[in-house]
């Protein structure tokens, strides 16, 4: 596992793409095939099944470190990462043992069928034979989620160089439902069709945010405009009489949306559609939270289906008559898509995302400003001649969102952050005044300020703490921040009666005092307008 540790540290230490790619290639050249494929799996979120609960890990680690559980939890709160906390707390190893990444993963998998007592002994054994860095990786392998900056793009680049295969081909091979338990490194990269490749999705083409129309230098007639739908990006795959639905996060979510299974009646086999899963009822798009319910619930029951109806709104065609047509210009793909829709049963929740007509960029500005009325969050601008690229590609697809809402709110609670921000107060709760002068908390926000600003605010927080509840500090209601957000909803859970979507701090309004912040009434006005 030494090589994997090294790779992990290098990836974490450098921000330079080239160095990351080199580290990945270096790793691939140094380890046996089974360690190669596990690395790819881990960094693309395909970790082995969890065999030990985090609750047990915490208990065992506290016991082994000779500290009470409360002190373990306090330490965890400050470190912000469970695996790291455990690695730092444990006493030094007895004897360090070198095993490969694959060996350790097999060790972890083998824990599943053991009695709890044996599991504990085996975990203690592992901890006793690894140093701090090794333990950290071992714990991560159990708890999953490396959350490291290895984008799919980066992995593709490294593998393409290492295996001397075209990047696009690699990207395709890495998609979909595979696991090192069923695939080995050779079959993963081989040109043969693999088992399970029927379900394999294409890498999604992602858009860049457009800040101003100046970024679109070309002629308006080179562009198609569509609304930007605010749902979940999905890919519908119809192959060999079977149907699969993938999310952008490369999760197979077919079972979460059973109503889409009926598409198979209308869509011919050998077709792949790219589109948006939208909360939708009787001709209109519903608020986003309806779709969250669908994704987060383990079991999709009949009442959930009924209360959270959805539709799939298609905007691209990637495979047609069993052929990968991603290299065709968007214009042609769109033509084929229109043809397909001529024969779609209109009673199905399967819709075409309309192309909006415009003749000048001024028209676009108007379209964008009215986009919320149609339940969208702005516009998508796609070059008519663009192929369907893998990943993010600049200049061909732009997303042009409406400007977010903003309010000025008052900081009332602060809590220290996690991970990169451990040790700093970065998790803030904000309030506004109600009509009778009561301060009502209505949102939390974490991001949006610079490290320097955070330091300054931290200093202020320490001097202006009124009360402490565990890690939380109540501070003097004095500082005003501008909070931006994407949407506002009614919420029965909050005393303020509202909930925000994607709230973040835009700036510290040093020019404002608490009395000049927005009020609850302002927020309720926004709520009415948002509808």
């Amino acid at each position, binding site marked *: 596992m030494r090589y994997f540790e090294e790779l992990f540290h290098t990836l974490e230490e*450098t921000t330079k793409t080239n160095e990351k790619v080199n580290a990945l290639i270096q790793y691939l050249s140094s380890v046996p095939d089974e360690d190669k494929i596990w690395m790819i799996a881990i960094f693309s979120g395909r970790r082995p099944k969890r065999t030990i609960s985090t609750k047990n890990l915490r208990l065992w680690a506290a016991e082994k470190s000779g500290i009470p559980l409360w*002190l373990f939890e306090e330490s965890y709160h400050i470190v912000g990462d469970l695996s790291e*906390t455990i690695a730092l707390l444990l006493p030094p190893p007895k004897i360090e043992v070198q095993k490969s990444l694959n060996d350790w993963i097999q060790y972890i998998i083998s824990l599943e069928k053991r009695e709890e007592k044996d599991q504990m002994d085996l975990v203690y054994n592992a901890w006793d034979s690894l140093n701090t860095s090794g333990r950290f990786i071992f714990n991560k392998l159990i708890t999953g989620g490396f959350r490291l900056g290895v984008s799919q793009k980066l992995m593709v680049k490294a593998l393409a160089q290492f295996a001397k295969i075209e990047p696009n081909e690699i990207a395709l091979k890495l998609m979909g439902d595979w696991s090192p338990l069923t695939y080995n490194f050779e079959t993963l990269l081989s040109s043969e069709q693999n088992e399970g490749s029927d379900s394999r999705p294409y890498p999604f083409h992602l858009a860049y945010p457009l800040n101003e129309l100046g970024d679109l230098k070309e002629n308006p007639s080179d562009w198609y405009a569509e609304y930007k739908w605010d749902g979940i990006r999905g890919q519908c795959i119809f192959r060999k009489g079977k149907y699969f639905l993938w999310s952008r996060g490369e999760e197979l979510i077919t079972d979460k949306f059973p109503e889409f299974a009926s598409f198979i009646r209308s869509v011919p086999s050998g077709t792949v559609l790219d589109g948006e899963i939208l909360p939708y009822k009787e001709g209109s798009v519903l608020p986003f939270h309806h779709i969250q319910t669908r994704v987060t619930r383990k079991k999709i029951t009949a009442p959930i289906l009924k209360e959270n109806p959805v539709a799939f709104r298609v905007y691209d065609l990637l495979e047609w008559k069993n052929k990968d047509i991603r290299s065709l210009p968007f214009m042609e793909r769109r033509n084929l898509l229109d043809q397909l829709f001529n024969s779609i049963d209109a009673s199905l929740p399967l819709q075409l995302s309309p192309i909006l007509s415009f003749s000048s960029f001024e028209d676009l500005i108007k379209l964008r400003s009215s986009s919320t009325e149609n339940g969208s969050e702005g516009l998508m601008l796609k070059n008519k001649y663009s192929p369907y690229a893998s990943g993010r590609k600049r200049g061909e697809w732009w997303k042009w969102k409406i400007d977010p809402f903003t309010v000025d709110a008052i900081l009332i609670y602060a809590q220290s952050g*996690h991970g*990169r921000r*451990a*040790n700093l107060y970065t998790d803030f709760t904000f309030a506004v005044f109600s009509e009778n002068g009561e301060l009502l908390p209505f949102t939390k926000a974490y991001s949006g300020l610079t490290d320097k600003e955070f*330091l300054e605010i931290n200093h202020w927080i320490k001097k202006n703490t009124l009360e402490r509840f565990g890690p939380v500090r109540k501070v003097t209601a004095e500082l005003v921040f501008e909070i931006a957000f994407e949407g506002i909803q009614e919420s029965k859970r909050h005393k303020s009666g509202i909930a925000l979507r994607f709230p973040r701090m835009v700036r510290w309004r040093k020019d404002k005092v608490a009395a000049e912040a927005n009020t609850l009434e302002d927020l309720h006005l926004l709520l009415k307008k948002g509808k």
Partner: protein
Amino acid sequence: MGLLINTAFGLYCPQADVYLDPWKPVNKAIISHGHADHARWGSVSYLCTTSAAPVIKYRLGDINLETMAFGEEKRINGVSFSFHPAGHILGSAQIRVSYKGEVVVFSGDYKTVNDGFSESFESVKCHTFITESTFGLPIYHWTDQKIVFNEIEEWCSNNKKNGHLSILYAYSLGKAQRILQGISENAGPFYTHGTIEAVLKVMRNQGISLKNTIQINENTTRTELLNGLILAPPAAQNSNWLKKFEPVRQGIVSGWMALRGARRRRNADKGFVLSDHADWKGLNDAIVLTGAENVFVTHGYTDILSRWLQDKGLNALPLETNFEGDEIL
């Protein structure tokens, strides 16, 4: 703690009318060491150790400063004050205060391991111990400094091989001298930022022997620097100081580097875990060794360390200070 009370100006001894490390100007200040959060400007008179004095004078200017050697005693209105090595930086002291048989020790900042440069920490028996807790969490345990210096030397030599300059960020007072003292001559020549060179000069003038260093100036070339190691204060990290010498590799030498979160926040290429504060074990050992029944915990994880000490049967309480958390680099 009648002998010492916590005031808006800092710890105060009413009987002697003296403040310990006050953070606002007072009449009489006794200073544990020269770091800016302990030695503040504006008081009428100061008392510190003989070896800490030159730097404090350099930093605070023309002040009314009296000095005393470690172990000597000074009586003020019946209260006896003495300095005892804290092992934090050169000249850093714990301040022992005793009156009518009651003994209180204010630790200042301290570390229990010998760094080979500062006067080695000395445990002082007392009834009440006021301890710092900068790294007062069980996640912090320091490795032997020899291992850390080896890591630094290896990192430098790798950088050299790849044509990258090596720059280490370290506090100009304390860490910089500890590194110079502990690192192999082979990692040199050692180039310095002006802030660090100034402190080194003060120490050389007081007769402390330190490795040779070269201050970087506008004529320094990249080729020269590539052969050696650059030492700079943390504040220089975000300045344009080294722009013209790119590509550089930046390492930070600090106890905070033990956490991945802190490493990433500081945006350095490499973090080296080396601290001039006691780790969890160091704090616990030091507290037990004083034999104190009462412990006040200040500067750091005050709540957590106090609760832990209470669990162990000690009379422990957090002591809030105005500058808590300032040392988060």
